[in-house]
């Protein structure tokens, strides 16, 4: 189990990332804005999971359980995108217009 100093260090990192994500939002990175924001969020979440939730210090099984939900969410996101990203490619007469995609 981690020591209190580890907890404080991780907290400091989290704070830096929190301010960073807000700050970077004001810089125009075009398409990369949401990507960077998500990357920072994933990093923060990973730090919380590994250190505050002790997954770093427990077995591989706990790690698999911790990550399974996120992997499944990715399946939902990716497969559902196959519809929304490709609906405009072959518009079917009378079909529901693809939401402005």
């Amino acid at each position, binding site marked *: 189990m981690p020591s209190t100093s580890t907890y404080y260090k991780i907290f400091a990192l989290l704070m830096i990332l929190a301010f960073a994500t807000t700050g970077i939002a004001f810089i125009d990175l075009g398409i990369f804005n949401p990507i960077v924001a998500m990357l920072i969020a994933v990093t923060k979440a990973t730090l919380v999971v590994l250190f505050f939730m002790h997954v770093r210090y427990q077995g591989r*099984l706990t790690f698999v359980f911790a990550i*399974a*939900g996120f992997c*499944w969410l990715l*399946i*939902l996101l990716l*497969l*559902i995108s*196959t*519809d*929304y*990203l*490709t*609906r405009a*490619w*072959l518009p*079917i007469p009378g*079909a*529901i217009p*693809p*939401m*402005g995609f």
Partner: protein
Amino acid sequence: MAASTEPLVGRTPNYLNAEHSVKSWLLTTDHKRIALLYLVSITLMFALGGIFAMLIRIELITPQGDLLSSDSYNRAFSMHGIIMIFFFLVPSIPATLGNFLVPMMVGARDLAFPRINLLSWYLYIAGAFLMLYVMATGGVDTGWTFYAPFSSLFSNGRVTLTVLAVFIVGFSSILTGLNFIVTIHTMRAPGMTWGRLPLFLWAHYATAVIMVLATPVLAVTTMMLGLEHVFHIGIFDPALGGDPILFQHLFWFYSHPAVYIMILPGMGVVSELIACFSRKRVFGYGFVGFASLAIAILSFLVWGHHMFVSGQSVYAGMVFSILSFLVAVPSAIKVFNWTATMYKGSISYDTPMLYALGFIGLFTMGGLTGMMLATLGIDVHVHDTYFVIAHFHYIMVGGAVMAYMGGLHFWWPKITGRMYPEIWGRISATIIFLGFNLTFFPQFIAGYLGMPRRYHAYSPEFQVYNVLSSAGASILAVGYLMPLIYFFWSIRYGLRASENPWGATGLEWKTASPPPTENFEQPPIVLEEAYHYSDEEAPIA
């Protein structure tokens, strides 16, 4: 193989006679008692769903919509679907046989979280009572699929309460799955490695994974549907720029894996039955076990095949079609392995085996017609026709319900300490098989010829198929009534069962019938593989 006729000396203490008060049943944390609580509730809901089925089949004897108005008919088939799927099929084997057997098969005293197990039953009951109230106050007419925007904005049925009931019963499902996963991971007896687990447990583990990962999406989707129905504002509303197809995506993201929740436990039962009544280990144990996991994972990748003609992108349709072909492979692997298990086995045709054999044949037919539906071109023709209805009833009734009946008969002596009357078991299994085929085979034809589903009236050229189907349904009903009667009869008058009347392998057969509350006198130690059948182990004749 007959049950032992040796009477038990006296009445040994077991989980049934441990305590007699109503409170000891309603506040029990014993997984075996909870299994029985579920058994009673599920049987009642099955009967209710069956009544709606009879209404449908009686209406459809004549082409005109004369028994029920179209609105009443909509409510009848909606209630039939909602009750049968959410309140019967999804819980059926896991909540009854699974709850009873999972701890015993791993060699534990109970599940990991007994109080959560009881909570799951109460959630089921709460959902069921809500549904009864919905029924009594007009029902819902959206179909069990609740498609938006009809269900969210236009239906005048009891949509909000129905989705609330489904939401609640979904959590019952999640808690059951959670319990199974943790139990199988952490509470296996010494020597019970993953490679020695009965295939029943592999199947229930895979089912539990689906329950836990899919059901929350249904929960949040029904929640959004309910909010939209109540507040008339929502994300599925085209007037706001919303997409009704999004509802279908989210709904089927659960509901397709849900059909595997309904069939996987049945496959687990069939593995046990085939092995026992062929007196042979399951051929390709590893393949069958991993096929269960493969089915669980692949089941999440195919939901779009319900939406080929909904307005979904054609390219997404192609992706889902190919993936749907893929998901048939592990199911087929199982069928081949069961067949190979029987080859050169010593087959006996006791009632459970009759159900298992029926399962293999009917599931295969249902599965093959599923592949036809997965084919984009064919689906355009048969979508929303009776072809689809026949397909899923072959799997759900010809498959899942037959496996459930087979399992009930097989483990009945363990659960109650009594044997059912074997001759009546075989008769009713045969009646069910014949009645089932007469009911649903004509529906394939009617659907292929174009008869649409969810209509109370139809074109007269389909009448002959509908009459055959309704006749079959009456026979099927008789077939289901018989076990209800003789199971009740057996509790009082059935032959007392020994520890292992079938001569089967598995830890549950190494303790008394019915088992003591703590399951085993001493925690078992496992030294053999799962299906250590051999000629020397012929059961007591």
